[in-house]
């Protein structure tokens, strides 16, 4: 349709639309009649086109407001006259009554009446929605044009508001001022209560009523929080639920045991969750969860844990399932799981302390029966027996602690879902009882445990088993705070193992060291590794010396093979090896070696000084050993045989020196103790011990002592036992008081004193390191930094640190800064 050049005139719009007024009243009458039809569900006869056209005209004629108000009024009348009556008829007396006193009616009656009411309301609401949306369809033009321009709510929304005002906010009856809404709330709550009590209710019915409440708003703003559901029902619901669960939890705590309580609580939480999904709105979920959790868990968890059948009972009886329930409940209300943690910690410390007590008791108990340890050589010596018992106690302690740890690990894994927080808590508790001041022996016990295993325990075990044992030791080590003390013990034990060749496998030793290295750092194992290094170097030295001697000339049949260990004096805990005599060691005159040995000794010294100039060798005769081939003359034996016997004797160096003395004596000659001492210059304690083992121990009685007694007195005389007869060719002559033993109290004090001394150095070093770097520092900061630096090694006492600082000030490493508000120190270069 092309508009040509012929200048088309625009036509005025059709008369039907413009100019003349529409007869509002007449048109409205038609519309109203149609609306009535709609409300009585007779819409299918109505023509949408016609109704729309009427409404459209009215709005176009600027009578939108009038129409809007009329429609509004129509809806109001309809709701208040028709619908409200229907609803009110549904209210049966027992419904009204139940709001005041529940006792009057049976639940079944109430349920039926309630459902009838809810159904009626649901129908009214559904009808209202359908009808209103049809109305809104007809009035679409008004909604779009009039309502948008004049900022009025769309007719649909307005009708919804009317439903709220006319139905829900109306009173239940003339005499009763309560609103239908509150009645509705009560009925729904009542139904929910029935469900909690185990009845089956019509969830779908309630849900649709809940949807109605969701769709309506408290005020005109229509914000999310203002939904009737939130402002009216939900509040009530949470309130009654709280009361209900408070009562229930009290009842349960009184009547059932902890496990059942947990199960029940879990069930309730699940039920409420389901209820929110099926009956109410999901948005209520978190809120009701909180109520349930508050009432069933948060306010009760303490009592629950403390119950007779609480956590302690569960741990003792291995109720892992129930522990998990407790944990699960606790977790819901408390991220830190305080109550569970507390109970677990308490239990760990309790059980740990029991183990400690057992260990102390075992170590102090009088020897009940001779220990059945075949390796024990301290036969007949009461003190030895005691010591041995202590060793057993130590091992038992370690194993008990490990068992405890295993047990709680299992609980942790299976009941606590490997929660890191709880692991920390357990670790803290273990640390607490292992380091408890009433039980100072943990470091020593652990070291002893390792020692025992290195010497015997790991014999015949597979690699992975060994690894597990080592791992256990490391785990315990982790709990120990005074790592330096442990180091000291470990060094001592290791030293003994290395020098006396007691260790079963060097590999395992090194493995242990590397594990410690990973766990405790490089510093810790530095000296231990150095010990191993010394051992290797010594082997090379021995071999080198052997070659050197061979290279000297023709083979001397009488030559003595020398195997030597050169030990760095700082690395090795030599003083502990020297035993009680360590103090006097320096003043002690050197032992006189027999000439053959002396020659060899000098030869090695020469060889060594050629290799390393400026090093001094000190010979520790008390630590060596010697193999001697001894020939016993033909003497009639007890069994009547008569022949020469040859034995390879393995004796200590002192023993060798003593025995060689008798080489020069005649068969029936003897020497007194004093004579021996004068000739050999062996410290009397060592001499006594060696003579004891050579003359007293029945299997190695190479010398004959007169008079025959256990003790060795200076006046005793010794002679060669020509009639000695051993069962084996090789005989090892042990020295009394060897082996690993728990320290006596005196020894312990010594160890601790030494330990304290070395700690002092560590502290001073740390302080100086810090101050050198920081130049000036307040006392508080210095303390905290020092403590944190040292925590890997031990837990220093504050007093000791203070004393060290004082001492450093005295020695002018530090000075106090005058005029400082707090204590400040300055580093003096």
């Amino acid at each position, binding site marked *: *349709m*092309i*508009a040509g050049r012929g200048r088309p005139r625009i036509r*005025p719009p*059709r008369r*039907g*639309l413009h100019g003349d007024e529409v*007869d509002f009243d007449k048109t409205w009458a038609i519309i109203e009649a149609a609306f009535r039809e709609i409300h009585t569900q007779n819409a299918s006869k109505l023509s949408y086109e016609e109704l729309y056209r009427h409404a459209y005209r009215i709005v176009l004629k600027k009578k939108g407001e009038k129409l809007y108000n009329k429609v509004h009024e129509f809806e109001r009348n309809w709701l208040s006259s028709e619908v409200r009556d229907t609803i009110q008829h549904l209210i049966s007396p027992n419904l009204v009554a139940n709001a005041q006193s529940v006792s009057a009616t049976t639940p079944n009656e109430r349920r039926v009446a309630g459902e009838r009411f809810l159904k009626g309301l649901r129908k009214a609401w559904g009808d209202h929605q359908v009808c209103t949306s049809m109305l809104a369809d007809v009035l679409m033009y008004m909604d779009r044009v009039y309502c948008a321009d004049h900022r009025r709510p769309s007719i649909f929304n307005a009708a919804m508001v009317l439903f709220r005002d006319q139905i829900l906010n109306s009173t239940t009856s003339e005499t009763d001022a309560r609103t239908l809404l509150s009645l509705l709330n009560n009925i729904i709550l009542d139904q929910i209560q029935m469900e909690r009590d185990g009845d089956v209710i019509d969830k779908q019915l309630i849900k649709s009523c809940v949807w109605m409440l969701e769709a309506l708003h408290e005020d005109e703003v229509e914000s999310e929080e203002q939904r009737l559901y939130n402002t009216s029902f939900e509040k009530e619901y949470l309130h009654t639920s709280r009361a209900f669960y408070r009562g229930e939890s009290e009842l349960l705590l009184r009547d059932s045991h902890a496990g059942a309580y947990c199960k029940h609580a879990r069930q309730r939480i699940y039920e409420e969750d389901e209820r929110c999904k099926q009956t109410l709105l999901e948005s209520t979920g978190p809120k009701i969860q909180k109520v349930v959790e508050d009432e069933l868990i948060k306010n009760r968890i303490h009592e629950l844990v403390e119950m007779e059948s609480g956590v302690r009972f569960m741990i003792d009886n291995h109720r892992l399932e129930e522990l998990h329930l407790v944990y699960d409940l606790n977790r819901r209300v408390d991220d830190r799981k305080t109550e569970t943690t507390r109970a677990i910690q308490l239990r760990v410390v309790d059980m740990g302390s029991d183990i400690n007590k057992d260990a102390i008791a075992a170590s102090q108990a009088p020897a009940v029966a001779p220990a059945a340890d075949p390796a024990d050589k301290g036969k007949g010596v009461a003190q030895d027996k005691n010591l041995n018992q202590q060793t057993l106690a130590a091992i038992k302690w370690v194993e008990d602690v490990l068992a405890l740890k295993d047990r709680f690990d299992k609980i942790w894994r299976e009941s606590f879902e490997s929660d890191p927080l709880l692991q920390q808590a357990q670790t803290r508790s273990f640390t607490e009882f292992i380091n408890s001041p009433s039980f100072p022996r943990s470091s020593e016990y652990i070291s002893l445990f390792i020692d025992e295993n290195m010497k015997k325990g790991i014999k015949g075990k597979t690699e992975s088993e060994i690894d597990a044992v080592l791992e256990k030791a490391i785990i315990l080590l982790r709990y120990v705070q005074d790592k330096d003390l442990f180091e000291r013990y470990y060094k001592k034990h290791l030293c003994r193992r290395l020098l006396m060749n007691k260790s079963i496998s060097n590999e395992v030793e090194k493995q242990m060291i590397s594990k410690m290295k990973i766990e405790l750092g490089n510093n810790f194992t530095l000296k231990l590794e150095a010990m191993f290094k010394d051992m290797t170097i010594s082997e090379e030295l021995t071999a080198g010396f052997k070659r050197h001697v061979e290279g000297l000339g023709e083979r001397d049949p009488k030559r003595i093979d020398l195997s030597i260990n050169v030990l760095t004096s700082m690395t090795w805990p030599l003083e502990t090896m020297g035993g009680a005599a360590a103090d006097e060691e320096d003043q002690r005159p050197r032992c006189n070696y027999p000439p053959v040995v002396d020659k060899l000794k000098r030869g090695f010294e020469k060889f060594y000084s050629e290799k390393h100039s400026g090093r001094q060798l000190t010979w520790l005769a008390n630590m060596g050993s010697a193999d001697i081939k001894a020939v016993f003359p033909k003497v009639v034996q007890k069994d009547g045989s008569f022949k020469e016997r040859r034995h390879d004797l393995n004796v200590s160096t002192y023993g060798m020196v003593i025995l060689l003395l008798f080489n020069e004596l005649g068969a029936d000659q003897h020497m007194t103790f004093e004579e021996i001492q004068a000739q050999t210059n062996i410290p009397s304690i060592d001499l006594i011990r060696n003579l004891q083992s050579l003359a007293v121990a029945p299997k190695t009685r190479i010398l004959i002592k007169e008079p025959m007694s256990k003790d060795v007195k200076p006046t005793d005389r010794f002679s060669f036992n020509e009639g000695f007869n051993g069962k084996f060719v090789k005989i090892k002559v042990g020295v009394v008081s060897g082996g690993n033993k728990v320290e006596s109290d005196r020894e312990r004090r010594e160890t601790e004193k030494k330990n304290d001394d070395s700690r002092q150095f560590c502290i001073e070093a740390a302080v100086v390191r810090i101050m050198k770097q920081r130049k000036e520092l307040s006392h508080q900061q210095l303390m905290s930094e020092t403590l944190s630096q040292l925590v890997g090694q031990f837990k220093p006492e504050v007093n000791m640190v203070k004393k060290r600082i004082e001492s450093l000030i005295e020695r002018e490493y530090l000075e106090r800064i005058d005029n400082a508000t707090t204590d400040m120190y300055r580093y003096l270069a």
Partner: protein
Amino acid sequence: MDVKKKYEIEAALATEAQAISAGQLKEENPLDTSEDFRVFCEACRRGDLKVCQEMISAGVNLNARDQFDYTPLILASLCGHYEVIRLLLENGALCERDTFQGERCLYNALNDRIRNLLLSYDYAKASNPLQPLAAHLTALLARPTPKTTDITITAYGQEFHLHKFILAARSPYFAEKLATAPSTTSWKLPNSIPAESLGVALQYLYFQEVSIRRALFGLSDEQELAVLKGIDKIGKQLEIERLFEDITEVSDRRLLRQRRAEELERGRDQLESWYKDNVLRHKRVVDTAKVDTIQWDRENSIFADILLRADDDEEDDKESDDTDRSPGPSESSTPPVRNTPGPLSGIPVGPGREQSGSPLRQRASRKSTIFPAHRAMLLRSEYFLTMFSSQFKEAQDTPHLQIITIDCSPAVLETILTFMYTERADFGLEIAIDVLFAADQLFIEKLKQRAAIIISALGNGATSAVESDNPRGATDADEPVDIYEVIRAGWDTRVQRLEEFAARYIAYRLEHYIDQPEFAELVQESANRVKARQETDTVELVDDIRYYLSERFRLRFEDSGLDEMMDENAAVQATTEGDLVDAMGEFALDDGIPEHLQQEENFVSVEQQIAAGVIRNLDGEIVGDEFAQDAMNYQILLGKIDTLLEKLNLDA
């Protein structure tokens, strides 16, 4: 913003030329030397909205170029005709960044306002004008309610619910099949064609942008081959030869767009010709009184499922108020097949017509026109959507087709139907306002905008075609529009564009309107509207008029482009603008006419007298005085508006 370098554009141009000569690309701006196009270009040059609209309606190619390589859009933007540019863009003229012609357009834009307008229509944002139609049809394929489908095609157990009229329009095969058996309600596919192939073909028929890659996604090679074969086969069977070619993927964005545009165009043309051949051909004019007796069977040859009725205009108010139209169930015994009006009766049954009409009309009985239609297409209007989704009578299933009265003239109804079926909206000024109201009533927003465009483009009339030709606001005796009606229609239907248009229209002819009592009435009405909306003190209409008034006169000054002249007049302007009375006094010294003015406020066409006087007095003198005269006129008109407002007791 980033602008491409010259060499980059030249390179792009070269590759484009190559692609075009190789036949890969279609030329976007083909050379057009026809007379129509020349006229069109001339109109764009001069800013003649009316001619532009007429030529667009006549179907010239908006994106062609003339012998100097100018496109209409370049011309209009070069010459600075904002309204024309807007019209061109709205009708699909392309201005795309990073193309040669597009950048040319932007570079040539006279001012920033035009440049911004051009940028806002960049292709990246604008979409194909046929897209809404296509989207609607595509949506029909999956729309569950209200039910509009009337045939079910089954393939391998998968059912497709479809519309016969779309199938018939799009596929010759279906057209033939359905013509022989229009009542078919189901159709089975030969087993050799997989359901996926059918799906693709149907998507294509329903205007969906088919991606073969998406259709084949996740299929094994074997299945893929089967589907492709199936597509080929079904394409042949349904006689949609282009199917395979059109769904093959291409990567080039521009090529893709061109092909999509072509595809839509072709689809629309098919739909349109089907619509013309079937829907329009079957419209019937019957006596209004007999309308109710019409019975169309559900099974009819054009698959219509609803009848729309529009009554002829009559100068009869009561008729339109007649509420008794809803036809009850007809008892007529007409045969169930398609039925032309019942027995003709010479007796007019319409209600009384006391109004004076032509004697001829009085004798003739009132006629109604019945259009068969398809609900599926009517759903494009929210009004029909609501109607057919509701539970009212119209949504019920009846044995015979329901007749729905549409409150407009047959011509308007036809326009609306044409728009809904084909997206075409070319109609004349004479029914524009009716279309506007009808579209408003039926919630067809796009048609409303089209009507507004047509009114504002054609409504200017011949005289104002080029504003600069009519500096003195001379008015045509024969106005094409009743501007009061236009502005009221604009208000009633909330079309901002019409309000602007009317304000502008009035501003350019203010001399003519300022003294009419109707104008005062209109101002009063506008003021009331404002108050009803929000509590502000401005009168929208007056503000708009003032704005366009200033534009009108400023245009004159700017057009001269001679700064020295402005300077020369600076003094005069300063005083006139500063104080009206002073200026008048000054002029009073010259010729005494302002005195005359001051005395007679209500003088009819005062300004013409001034103009006449000035011309008479200053004829042959320097041009500068003409500017002075314009300034005078401007001030006088402003003064008049103030007086008017005062009289109406309005604060502005």
